């Protein structure tokens, strides 16, 4: 789920970071690096805080 600033949420979705996207976190603590749909997208802390991701059940990839 994406919260916060509408324009920002729109851009995230347009970049494929939408509600249905599969996200793999690669690195980072405050600023995080995620892999979505084969691209690497960096999000800073504030941006990442606006996104709620759900963990996939173990074994599913």
């Amino acid at each position: 789920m994406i919260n916060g600033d509408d324009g920002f949420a729109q851009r995230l979705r347009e970049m494929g970071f939408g509600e249905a996207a599969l996200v793999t976190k690669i690195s980072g603590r405050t600023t995080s690096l995620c892999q979505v749909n084969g691209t690497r997208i960096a999000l800073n802390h504030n941006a990442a805080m606006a996104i709620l991701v759900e963990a996939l059940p173990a074994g599913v990839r």
Partner: protein
Amino acid sequence: MVGNPNCGKTTLFNALTGLRQKVGNYPGVTVEKKIGECYSQHGRPMKIIDLPGAYSLAARSPDEAVLRDVLFGRREDTPQPDRVICVLDATNLERNLYLVHQILDLGRPVILVLNMMDLAVKAGLRIDTHQLAAALGVVVIACAAVKGEGLVELKLAMSRSDLPLARHRWDVPAPIAPAVAELQASLSDADAQSPLIARAEALLLLTDFESVRIAGSKPLSARTAAVLAAWQQRCAREESNWSGTLIRSRYDAINTLCREVLRRPRPPELSGSDRLDAVLVHSIWGWLFFGFVMAALFFSIFSLAEYPMNWIDAHIAALSRGVKNILPPGDLRDLLTDGVIGGVGGIVVFLPQILILFFFVGLLESTGYMARAAFLMDRPMSKVGLHGKSFIPLLGSYACAIPGIMATRTIENAKDRLVTILIAPLMSCSARLPVYLLMIATLLPAAALPATWKAGLMLLMYLLGTLGAFGFAWLFKRTLFKSARPLMIMELPAYQPPRLKEILRQMVERSWLFLKNAGTIILGISIVLWFLTTYPKHPDPKASAEAQIAVSFAGQAGHLLEPVIKPLGFDWRIGIGLVTSFAAREVFVSSMSVIFGVQDNGEDTLPVRDALRAARWPNGASLFTPLVCITLMVYYVFAMQCMSTIAVVKRETNSWRWPLFQIAYMTGTAWLVCFAIYQIGRALDY
């Protein structure tokens, strides 16, 4: 030509047009307008406009707004495109198809270029281009721009006069349809848009948030604006998320399409770039590597550059001597040697350092590491209220604030961009180097001290400037430019082996710009300065150079200035240097050598140094005490002393307000800090 950032659009554009390019600006906005020319199969010239890279037509920056407005035919300065070349990164088809999907709505003839096919093949992706072409009804061309593959086919397609119009099987999502229909009608009637473009624009307007409007684009008609406002209010009242619905609908269509045309190896795994990233942006290893890169950068700038710089210096001196031998003594000779050759030569010496810096920046950019550096720097930058993207312009400003300020264009948030522009000139640029070097040489007697002292002092100045920049960013973000904490989303491109040809091309381009500056602005200033120090002539023709300067225009100005700078320990002669070096900081050094009557033997700065050390106040006290030397260096760390930067800031911010503010706050800070240092130093008996 349109496409996502990093899809290889520039590479393709260069491959198609070669050197037949014109770079300018879209009037009213600081967005680069690149137009190139190539020839069709039948030898007819074709004009290609390289539009700014963008993820979507819902513009979040002036760059993206230009793309949108050109495609909608809303810019008077650009003719309506009669075909659109959409460049896609084939390794990331889904995301790249999003922009394509929006563009297909326009009903203009489209050519899809699947670029980076070499990488896609390597990654095991199989794309059925025939099926893609059939599904969308457009011409699809597989291509690898760096290898020149697919260019001939592309040119053939571009030459076709019978390009098919896209068959775009996609219906406007039902909740938005009534609004789109009404707005479309208004756009056709009141704004004279063709039906398909009107529909595309209606879709965009209805799902846009705070989209960027730019000068020079035709605004909406009053009627359309009213219709739009009514629907927007209704959407807000019903709390519908039209934007989300539309994006989902587009991605659904894209995913269906991709299931038909794209085969990827199972299971999707982390790519080489991902594995590299796990190390290079790691919270420990990443910083170590970053530190190593920065150390290598500064080492090259300060030590490697010395050899070519000495070489250039020697040749300029030889040239000056040559002219002195040929011409009879007199004003013309002095103008040529002291004014022209001395002034311009003083700038050209920095070319090696600037080339090295551009080489590094090019290397970091073309390998994809620059985005990682920005990623790492995001956290420290967020402490002062900026985000990682501001790091790239600031790094560039160590060479010269001008390319640095131009690089701020990638920052979407206007306030963040302005803050970055305001602080960029505080990063010690290479023009400050000669001032630092001269002052350090005057301050520390030659061989007596180890070189590390000098390097340490120099580093201290760089540190002071950097801290100053961050301090002011913090201050500005808390006062003048209060805004919500910035949100950053940045795509990190895949790592690539460096492309030396491309880097060299950029180095040549940028250094040519630098030399052009030296040949025009600096040349002019050097001549003016020479004039101001030479006239009016001293009544006694045999008067010393120093006496001559005292009566000259420049000397008079220096005397006027003296009361203001005396509390900093500077006299009128230093004052002249401060005034002339307002043109460019390095002019200070040549001014000092002119003013203190140094016989330049062209070997090194030794004589200037000795002349400065011998300089006295009228009461016999030494002028350049160690305290004054340090104060002067600190002055140059902070003061805004560069006309070219002022001109660029004016251009980039479109007003005189910010460059004037910049002069006031930077030079004001310089004065205050220097006042404190000098007065405290004096009180402590230094």
